[in-house]
């Protein structure tokens, strides 16, 4: 059994970035991935984009469109993306009846050029391929088709046990996603808050008739008494979108929902479009892990919080964890104390940061669970103002409270049940609202 400085489990954004950083720091590194084809995008996700022009986890991505270099300005690392990109200028939420809530407008933001963009859309398989090339150039041993079953701490090492092989590392970095086997094996899921199990299906579509090519559209719907969110994310190719359907209740058949949305609602975007089902995912929505470390395993990316680290958080936490491991080994402290830079960063800039309410991201999924389609449409019809252009997962809705304040008297008069629903969203925990959906879920405790 080969002994490595660090064994990285999972080759998504977080794991690839961790392996690249560790390899470039001169650490002997193994990267294990369950897929045989690492750069294929099999898992459907909403955010095939990187938010720009805003801080997240005390950092900011600066993108050089000429060279493809993506730099994290405060932490000082980067990776080179070799593929096309598209500037995203606005983010609009629609009801199925056609009213919308607008975070910026593409026409106004486009006039500002690159500074007006709120995100960039990449071709994610090309981004994964770019990272993999850099991982290999850094001398990392890559093991595709390797499914990890267990991890065990032994004297001075972590044993990572796969189906037909075993690896040993002074440290392990767990980047194996929302359903992490490593987090489960270490016991993190036993006492962790569990919201529900999410299902997603993802299509590539051509020739959608959306109003603007550089705007991300979400459709917020209630379907079979629960929320289904549809994300329409422009791809960096002419007239191509990634369209993703997300539901926090795994009993809902999303392929049927797709038919409902495209054939039975007033949204005119889908007529004549070509669609191909390309990916899917089923993932558990867990609460955030307070200390992402145990038995010399550091946890990164979606493994530590509730699906929505975003690609931004995955890249950043992967790099930060690998740098902390490099520091610990250089310092001769292969233990929790050695990697304290990572743990302190996590605690300060996310877990106990005043900028983010932990697990707040769950709130974004609650609207359609509480209000019906008529109520959602009415609410959006009252919010005609253009809010600040943003697609930041945590700060996006900060302005909304103020905007809502101005229309409360109208809503009280015209549709008071909408106010009651918004009150319920503010007062009840997402776990309470999702109790029925959770009863059908599949938590891997």
């Amino acid at each position, binding site marked *: 059994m080969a002994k490595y400085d660090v064994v990285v489990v999972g080759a998504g954004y977080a794991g690839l970035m961790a392996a690249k950083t560790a390899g470039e720091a001169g650490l002997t590194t193994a990267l294990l991935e369950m897929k045989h084809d690492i750069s294929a995008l099999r898992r459907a996700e909403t955010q095939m984009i990187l938010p720009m022009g805003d801080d997240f986890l005390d950092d900011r991505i600066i993108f050089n469109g000429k060279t493809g270099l993506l730099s994290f300005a405060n932490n000082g690392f980067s990776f080179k993306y070799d593929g096309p990109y598209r500037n995203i200028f606005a983010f609009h939420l629609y009801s199925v009846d056609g009213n919308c809530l607008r975070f910026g407008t593409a026409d106004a933001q486009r006039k500002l050029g690159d500074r007006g963009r709120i995100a960039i859309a990449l071709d994610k398989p090309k981004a994964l391929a770019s990272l993999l090339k850099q991982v290999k150039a850094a001398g990392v041993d890559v093991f595709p088709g390797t499914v990890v079953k267990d991890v065990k701490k032994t004297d001075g090492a972590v044993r990572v046990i796969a189906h037909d092989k075993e690896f040993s590392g002074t440290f392990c970095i767990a980047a194996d996603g929302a359903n992490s086997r490593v987090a489960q094996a270490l016991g993190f899921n036993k006492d962790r808050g569990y919201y529900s199990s999410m299902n997603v299906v993802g299509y590539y579509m051509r020739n959608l008739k959306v109003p603007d090519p550089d705007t991300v559209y979400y459709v917020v719907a209630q379907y079979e008494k629960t929320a289904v969110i549809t994300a329409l994310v422009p791809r960096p190719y002419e007239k191509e979108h990634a369209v993703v359907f997300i539901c926090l209740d795994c009993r809902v058949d999303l392929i049927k929902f797709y038919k409902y949305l495209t054939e039975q609602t007033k949204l005119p975007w889908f007529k004549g479009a070509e669609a191909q089902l390309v990916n899917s*995912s089923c993932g558990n929505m867990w609460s955030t892990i307070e200390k992402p470390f145990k038995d010399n395993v550091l946890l990164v990316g979606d493994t530590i919080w509730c699906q929505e680290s975003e690609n931004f958080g995955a890249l950043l936490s992967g790099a930060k964890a690998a740098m902390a491991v490099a520091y610990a080994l250089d310092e001769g402290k292969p233990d929790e104390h050695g990697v304290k830079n990572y743990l302190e960063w996590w605690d300060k800039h996310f877990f106990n940061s005043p900028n983010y309410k932990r697990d707040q991201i769950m709130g974004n999924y609650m609207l359609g669970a509480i209000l019906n389609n008529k109520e959602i449409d009415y609410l959006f019809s009252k919010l005609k103002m253009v809010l600040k252009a943003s697609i930041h997962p945590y700060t996006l809705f900060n302005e909304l409270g103020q905007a809502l304040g101005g229309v409360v008297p109208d809503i009280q008069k015209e549709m008071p049940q909408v106010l009651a629903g918004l009150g319920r969203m503010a007062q009840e925990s997402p776990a309470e609202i999702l109790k029925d959906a959770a009863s059908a879920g*599949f938590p891997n405790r």
Partner: protein
Amino acid sequence: MVKVNNLLCTGCGGCINICPVCAITLQQGDDKATVNANCNDCKVCIRACPVNVFSL
């Protein structure tokens, strides 16, 4: 042992870490789910799969 409909599988791998007995892997060539003899018919994968790949 549960059956796999490879025509439907997108290869997302969500089922792999959900399986309580580590009975699912992705097969060489096309990265579709495949079930091994560890399967104990618990049906968790049937509930979890968003594109209904699994059946008994």
